[in-house]
């Protein structure tokens, strides 16, 4: 296990898009984090069923998406490209189908490399199907076995990078979010999810080693992006969503502790922290991912991105082109600007404009501020275990939010301010002793929703 005890980046001047302490060579000669930000393009099927009868159409859709997007990437002279295939549940459940689609993308990328010198890498992200069983079965059963097979077959079929948006602990976190229950959230992320990820990522790292591909990283999407979406519709407070983002850092770090080396998954906004901690290149997403989800962090997420992603878009026609090709073009321009700034020696200035343009409008942007991330990241690493780090993330994160509000770094509505206070009170109750905390939480979780034994807690 890799132990992270201090930040790999602690100088704000070195904390910028396109550059990281440990650049990573992936795929077809792309060097990530070595001075250039590359687009990461993701796409998905239009409304249709996925089954044996429609697989021909599925193949045609993916072929069209990758071909047209690559052609546009060449037209726009992108310096390189990562394509991500987020496998749908049905394409994970039938590992050979997932592998087939992987092979389709592989073939297209190889073709454009040969014909136009387009440098690229292919990330494949199987769907975490384990919660098709309720309560989720994490390490046994058909869904688990199929998912494991999918990693292996897709790596064999041409994936360069393996990722997942793992959901262990989400079965507890969802309720915690809706109840504004900080302890529940800390338990889900700092105990359950972290324990699940340790085992899951050992496996992914093994597959990657066996197939000689890259174990890239995970995303707390089901936790922190769920919170962001709920905050966006005013179902939960923005300060809670901002806090959950910080809480997700120790959880997502587990992938790197077990051997992942980046690039972290696009939708993991906690990657801002993980880049500082690990020094690996990270994918992020924002304004150009509005096709997939609206967000309050469209510009600031660019601040330290090494890959810049559209998150996902269906293969439907917009007036200009099919939607994936439209995304390709938008990512090309967004990354062009960043790379031009680097070339001009103005990367940190552009970074600061990205940051300043969002940060005063939402606490969720505030916690992504590079300086805030460096400070909180260091505090988190001062603790030894995922639980204690998550607890520290809560205490330090709330402290930062309170200071930010006090300094007028952002404005909060009264209802939000109230929640900042209430969450702070809840955080004070988090015990320092992990054993005590687990005992407390085990006593009050809903056993109909979670199998604690799967996390090694029941036995």
């Amino acid at each position, binding site marked *: 296990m890799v132990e992270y005890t201090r930040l790999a980046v602690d100088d704000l001047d070195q904390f910028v898009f396109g550059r990281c302490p440990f650049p990573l060579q992936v795929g077809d000669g792309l060097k990530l984090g070595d001075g250039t930000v590359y687009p990461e393009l993701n796409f998905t099927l239009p409304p*249709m069923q996925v089954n044996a009868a429609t697989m021909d159409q599925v193949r045609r859709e993916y072929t069209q998406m990758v071909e047209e997007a690559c052609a546009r990437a060449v037209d726009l002279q992108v310096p390189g490209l990562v394509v991500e295939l987020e496998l749908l549940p049905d394409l994970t459940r039938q590992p050979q189908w997932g592998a087939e689609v992987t092979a389709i993308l592989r073939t297209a990328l190889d073709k454009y490399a040969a014909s136009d010198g387009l440098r690229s890498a292919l990330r494949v992200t199987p769907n975490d199907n384990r919660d098709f069983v309720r309560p989720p079965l994490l390490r046994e059963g058909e869904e688990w076995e199929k998912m494991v097979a999918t990693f292996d077959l897709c790596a064999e079929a041409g994936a360069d990078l393996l990722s997942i948006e793992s959901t262990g602990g989400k079965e507890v976190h969802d309720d915690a979010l809706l109840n504004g229950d900080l302890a529940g959230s800390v338990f889900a992320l700092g105990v359950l999810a972290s324990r699940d990820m340790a085992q899951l990522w050992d496996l992914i790292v093994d597959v990657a080693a066996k197939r000689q591909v890259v174990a890239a990283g995970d995303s707390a999407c089901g936790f922190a992006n769920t919170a962001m979406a709920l905050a966006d519709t005013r179902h939960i407070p923005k300060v809670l969503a901002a806090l959950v983002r910080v809480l997700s850092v120790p959880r997502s770090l587990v992938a790197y502790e077990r051997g992942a080396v980046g690039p972290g998954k696009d939708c993991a906004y906690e990657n801002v922290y993980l880049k500082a901690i690990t020094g690996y290149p990270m994918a992020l997403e924002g304004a150009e991912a509005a096709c997939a989800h609206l967000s309050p962090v469209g510009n600031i997420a660019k601040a330290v991105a090494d890959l810049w992603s559209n998150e996902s878009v*269906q293969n439907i026609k917009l007036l200009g082109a099919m939607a994936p090709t439209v995304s390709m073009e938008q990512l090309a321009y967004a990354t062009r600007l960043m790379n031009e700034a680097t070339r001009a020696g103005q990367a940190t200035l552009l970074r600061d404009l990205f940051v300043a343009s969002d940060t005063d409008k939402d606490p969720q942007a505030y916690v992504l501020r590079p300086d805030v991330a460096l400070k909180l990241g260091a505090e988190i690493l001062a603790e030894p275990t995922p639980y204690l780090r998550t607890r520290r993330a809560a205490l330090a994160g709330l402290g930062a939010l309170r200071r930010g509000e006090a300094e007028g770094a952002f404005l909060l509505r009264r*209802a939000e301010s109230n929640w900042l206070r209430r969450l702070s009170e809840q955080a004070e109750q988090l015990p320092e002793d992990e054993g005590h905390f687990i005992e407390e939480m085990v006593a009050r979780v809903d056993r109909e929703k979670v199998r604690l034994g799967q996390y090694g807690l029941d036995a």
Partner: protein
Amino acid sequence: MPVLEELRQAVVDGQAKAAVARATQGLEEGIPAEVLLRDGLISAMQEVGRLFEEGEIFVPEMLVSARAMNATLVVLKPLLATEGSEARSEGKVVIGTVQGDLHEIGKNLVAIMLEGSGFEVVDLGTDVSPERFLEAAEAGADVVAMSALLTTTMTNMKAVVEALGRAGLRDKVRIIVGGAPITDRFASEIGADGYAPDASKAVRKVRELLAVKA
């Protein structure tokens, strides 16, 4: 402050113990259970809904208020005439995510908001087959609500609409759909009665559909 107003405030504030105490006190003072229900609990939940709409509170506060209301109902229910008890429900809604879809938090929110607004909710959970939707509808429902977050599962909504049709239930239940890839237009295409882009609008839509039906 009269006890009725205290009861109402206790529910708004999500103080379950206080609410039960005030309801008990009200009964002792001779206030009919029906009045405590109407002017205490229901009125409180309407206020909670208003506060939510105006951004003064969030879902966590709504849930606490709903729990206070439910705790108080335990005390009142035995004393309510059957009729009054039924009047408590605005209608029965069967809800779930469609087959193949695990994305449940939006669905859960809709369920919470519907319950808070006085509907009886039967939550079938996630990955629900057309057969299970049908079964639940046959057991009695005014509305079937479905959600899908994937372009590859949204098409499963149609199977549910068709199953309800084949079972001769299509005139008896209203069907409402939602989720990231869903639109008004898609709802009409598959023969659903309505679409809502978020949980609050879902409640409004269900109200609207049941008014039309009635």
